[in-house]
C-alpha cells in the first residue's frame, strides 16, 4: 500500500478504447476491477493512476481483454501530494491598496492591508474583476465611522475590505444559505468579528432594518441591481453613496439611465475585462 511518504512513482495508465461507447465502459470497468480509485475521461481516452506495487502486465492484459483494439499506454509518474500541491498555484491578488491572500501566504503581511480568504468551492480566491472594481471604487470613499451594507455579500470579501478601509461596521447580507458559513469563517479569519455581521436573507427585507447606511456595496447582476435600487435609495443616508457591480460593459447605458431615474449620478466608473462598476451619489450632493 502506498503512503504519503512513499516517493516511488505511481503507475499511470492512459487507454484509448476503439470499440465505441460499450468498449469505453468495458475498459473503465476493467480499471475499477483492477483497483482504480477513479478514472478521468479526457477526449476519447481514459486515464488513471495505480499505486507503485501494481502488476503492470496483469493490468495491461485486463484492459486488452476488455477491448482488444484499445491503445494502452502505461508509464511511471512522480507522486505529488495534491492535498498541498494545489496551493502552489494560488497567489496573492492586488485589490487596489488591499491584497487578497490565502492563509498560507498571509504571514508577514500588514493585517490592515491584507484580506485573508481560504479558497473554497463556492467563492474560490475571492478574486474577480467585479470584486476588484468595487474595491478600487471604495478607495477614499469609505470614511472612519461609516456604516456600510454589502448586498449579495458571498464570501464577505467586500465587507471585510470596507472595515479594513475604516468603516465602523458592515452588514454582509446574503440570500444563499450555503454561503453563510464561508462568509462567517472569512470574517473571523480577518479579525472582523463584531464589525462585520453576516445576515442571511433578502436584501429588500433586511436593508431597511440596518438603514440608514452611508455606503451600499452591491456586486450582484444588473437585473437584481435594478430590482434593488428603490430599497438602496430608501436606505442611504442623505450623504450616502452606492457602488454597484456585476454589470456587463454593454449594460452600462441601461444602468446609467436607471441611476439617473433614481435621482442619482455616477461619480466614478471602473472597467475591467467585460465588467463595469459604478459609484453613485444623490444628484443633489
Amino acid at each position, binding site marked *: 500500500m502506498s503512503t504519503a511518504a512513499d516517493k516511488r512513482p505511481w503507475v499511470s495508465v492512459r487507454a484509448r478504447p476503439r470499440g465505441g461507447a460499450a468498449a469505453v*465502459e468495458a475498459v*473503465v470497468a476493467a480499471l475499477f476491477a483492477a483497483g482504480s*480509485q*477513479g478514472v478521468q475521461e479526457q477526449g476519447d481516452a481514459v486515464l488513471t493512476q495505480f499505486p507503485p506495487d501494481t502488476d503492470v502486465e496483469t493490468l495491461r492484459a485486463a484492459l486488452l481483454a476488455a477491448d482488444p483494439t484499445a491503445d494502452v499506454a502505461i508509464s511511471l509518474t512522480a507522486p*505529488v501530494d495534491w492535498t498541498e500541491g494545489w496551493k502552489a498555484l494560488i497567489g496573492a491578488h492586488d485589490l487596489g491598496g488591499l491584497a487578497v491572500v490565502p492563509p498560507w501566504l498571509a504571514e508577514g503581511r500588514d493585517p490592515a492591508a491584507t484580506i485573508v480568504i481560504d479558497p473554497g468551492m463556492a467563492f474560490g480566491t475571492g478574486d474577480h474583476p467585479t470584486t476588484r472594481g468595487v474595491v478600487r471604487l471604495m478607495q477614499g470613499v469609505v470614511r472612519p465611522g461609516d456604516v456600510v451594507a454589502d448586498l449579495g455579500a458571498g464570501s464577505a470579501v467586500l465587507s471585510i475590505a470596507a472595515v479594513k478601509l475604516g468603516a465602523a461596521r458592515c452588514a454582509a447580507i446574503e440570500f444563499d444559505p450555503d454561503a453563510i458559513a464561508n462568509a462567517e469563517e472569512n470574517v473571523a479569519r480577518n479579525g472582523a468579528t463584531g464589525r462585520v455581521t453576516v445576515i442571511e436573507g433578502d436584501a429588500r427585507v433586511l436593508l431597511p432594518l440596518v438603514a440608514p447606511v452611508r455606503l451600499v456595496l452591491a456586486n*450582484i447582476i444588473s437585473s437584481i441591481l435594478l430590482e434593488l435600487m428603490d430599497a438602496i435609495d430608501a436606505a442611504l443616508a442623505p450623504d450616502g453613496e452606492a457602488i454597484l457591480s456585476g454589470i456587463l460593459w454593454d449594460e452600462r447605458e441601461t444602468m446609467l439611465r436607471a441611476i439617473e431615474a433614481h435621482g442619482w449620478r455616477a461619480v466614478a466608473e471602473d472597467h475591467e475585462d467585460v465588467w463595469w462598476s459604478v459609484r453613485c451619489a444623490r444628484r443633489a450632493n
Partner: protein
Amino acid sequence: MAKKVTGFVKLQIPAGKATPAPPVGTALGPQGINIMAFVKEFNARTQGQDTILPVEVTIYADKSFTFILKTPPTAELIKKELGLASGSGTPNKTKVGSVTKAQVRKIAEIKMPDLNCDSIDSAMAMVAGAARSMGVTVSD
C-alpha cells in the same frame, strides 16, 4: 455574476469514496482548486450509494468550482441489477449472466438523462450492447 470558465474535468469515482490521492488529486490538483473541498463535498453528496458515479467538474478563473453528478455507468447498473461482482473478461466465450428486456428497459430509463438518445428504444439498444460486451446475454 458570471465567472470565466478555465477548466472542465470529467471523472468517474466510487460514490462516497473520493480521496485526494491519484487519480482524483492528479486530475484536479493542477487546476489549482481546493482538493479537500471537492473530496468532502463529493463524498457528502454521494455517501450511501454503492456505485461508480461520473462527475463533471467546472473550474473558474477565481479557482472556485462546481460539479454535477451523472447517472452511473451502464455496466455498473447491469452488474447491480444482476448481482454480479464483475463482467466477463472474455465476453464472446464466457457468459456471466442474462438480463431480461424488462431489466434492460429499467436501466435504459435510469440512463436516459445522460444518453444521446431520442427514444427509449435506442437507449435500450445501447444498454443491450453494453450487456453483451460484458458477457451478459439479453433474453425476452
